[in-house]
């Protein structure tokens, strides 16, 4: 067995990896990671960004979305997305965000339309998450945006059109973390 000088070994690992010595005390890695293939990453990576990055192929219409909503969503989110004791109100805000009873719906509060698609695809319906096809998720997203008067009744959404929808409250957020960095 070769006796290794751990400090020397660490130093050569750091040099090989091009890492500064600032984190030398925590870089003692046995380097056990296994390379992930592009196919594996594509299958695992479901994150969807406001600019549309990550949105899959496919499309869905408001009319199809309404049918799916009646079957899969209405039990918790109520008629027309008005919410119940079991699930968030998603549409139909009457009271504004500065009122005594602010209603935080997709239309009144959510800053990005892509978030609707992302959360429906990854988390909904709660009783059978992951069970909707991408087309169905586009359709449900379209219906929810329609309930919030953000698309027309005949709208069909896909990866090109969804990120183009400007949400009314996009500028309604203050980045508290960034403010800390500035101050």
């Amino acid at each position, binding site marked *: 067995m070769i006796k290794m000088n751990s400090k020397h070994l660490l130093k050569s690992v750091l040099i090989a*990896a*091009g*890492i500064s010595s600032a*984190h030398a005390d*925590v*870089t*003692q*890695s*046995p*380097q*056990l*990671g*296994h*390379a*992930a293939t592009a196919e*594996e*990453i594509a299958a*695992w*990576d*479901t*994150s*969807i*960004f*406001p600019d549309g990055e990550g949105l899959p192929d496919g499309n869905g219409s408001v009319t199809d979305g309404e049918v799916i909503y009646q079957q899969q969503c209405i*039990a*918790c989110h109520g008629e027309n997305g008005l919410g119940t*004791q*079991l*699930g*968030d109100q998603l549409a139909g805000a009457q009271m*504004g*965000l*500065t009122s005594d*009873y*602010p209603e*935080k719906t*997709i239309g009144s*509060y*959510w*800053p*990005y339309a*892509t*978030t609707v698609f*992302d*959360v429906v695809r*990854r*988390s909904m319906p*709660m*009783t059978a*998450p*992951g069970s909707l096809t991408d087309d169905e998720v586009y359709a449900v997203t379209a219906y929810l945006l329609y309930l919030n008067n953000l698309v027309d009744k005949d709208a069909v959404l896909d990866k090109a059109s969804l990120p183009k929808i400007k949400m009314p409250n996009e500028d*309604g*957020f*203050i*980045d*508290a*973390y*960034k403010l*800390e960095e500035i101050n």
Partner: protein
Amino acid sequence: MSNDKTENDLISDYQVAGNGLLDRRLFLKKGIQFGAITTLASAAAQPLQAATDTDFNPARPPWMNKPGDPFSIYGTPSKYEDRVVRFPTQNEAVPGNGVSWTPLHLMEGTITPNGLHYERHHNGVPQIDPAKHKLLIHGLVNKDLFFSMDDLLRYPMQSRICFIECGGNSNAGWNSSPSRSEAGYFNGMASNSEWTGIPLSVLLNEVGIKKDAKWIIAEGADAFNMQMSIPIEKAMDDALLAIYQNGEKIRPENGYPLRLVLPGWEGVLNVKWLRRLKLTNRPVMARNETSRYTELLPSGKARQFTFFIEAKSLITSPSAHMLLKKPGLYQVTGLAWSGRGKISKVDVSADGGKTWAEAELQEPVLDRAFTRFRMPWQWNGKPAILKSRATDETGYVQPERTELVKQRGKHGFFHYNAIINWQVDEDGFVSHVYDKDEQQTPSEISIDSGWD
């Protein structure tokens, strides 16, 4: 009363603030008897027990007259402690969507036993086979890598004791009338453990961070498939990929087999059942960093990325639903914590905030960990209002509720850290009250459940 003289002496010699708050050095004095504080349930149980145990011989109790139980492979609490449990509140349609509160009012010390650590799940607790669980790190990295749990167990580990608090903890405080729950059952979405695992920086160095990586999206392997965006500087600073909690593998409800622990940052970012870390140049704007876990201000704008838990404290005893049976000397004790560093002091008041005195802090006082404080108090049998106020090492002082509401309004829902008042009435019964100048009409707004 024979001990009148003693009580008066205690007051004259040791009083440090109004209405009987005494110098913490009194704890060092020998022969001082502190009164017992009982919860209403145990107070009611006592007479019954006395009536049925007529044969009980305290000089040789029955458990000394027969062999005890054999060994157990995994210990459980005494059957007499069966009230010390988490309090779950959950969505009727989706029972795994809800919270369970740590019974802070029934506990002492600072470490939360694993079975009592608070829970917040968005869609239940997955039962993950560690042999089939992998962590993927990808995105703006030099090498996209998978790590199996077997791999991770071979990495050098570190331990740290820190609290985790849900951003929605104490949210009943925003309501117009005070919560009637026990202290832990509306403030116990906070717990404190020793977490052991791999510094995330080690794995990030292994994959190699590209220059434009600014955020990491962390994703859980639960049915909600939770994802949250975290600034890369936090990941490189002190983020831990935790595998152990208080010496044993993390419990399923706290993220088994792998949890991201971000000391001092709100609970939802401490992603449980961690399966994927994606390095990006911007946040993903997930549902739980836009629609939820953002705080609506009176202006109509909402604070977003409010990662830090600000300093907070809570008197755990005496607290709501407890009973002080008679006037006398009591210990006021509680917990303080801050997501910005160490607690530097905790002041206690027994006269509703008119006068304050500094409580004893239990050593060691740790960075971003529960800190136990204690204060001797001579209760004179008259109504009193107890408060505690934490200050952390940055100089931040825990606000009164009126200040917090003035700054944030009542619709922020998250990050409630105001001072909590416990009123002791002349019968010794303790309840939660707001300051007199605050509105105390019955609330028409029900607690925002946080259900999804």
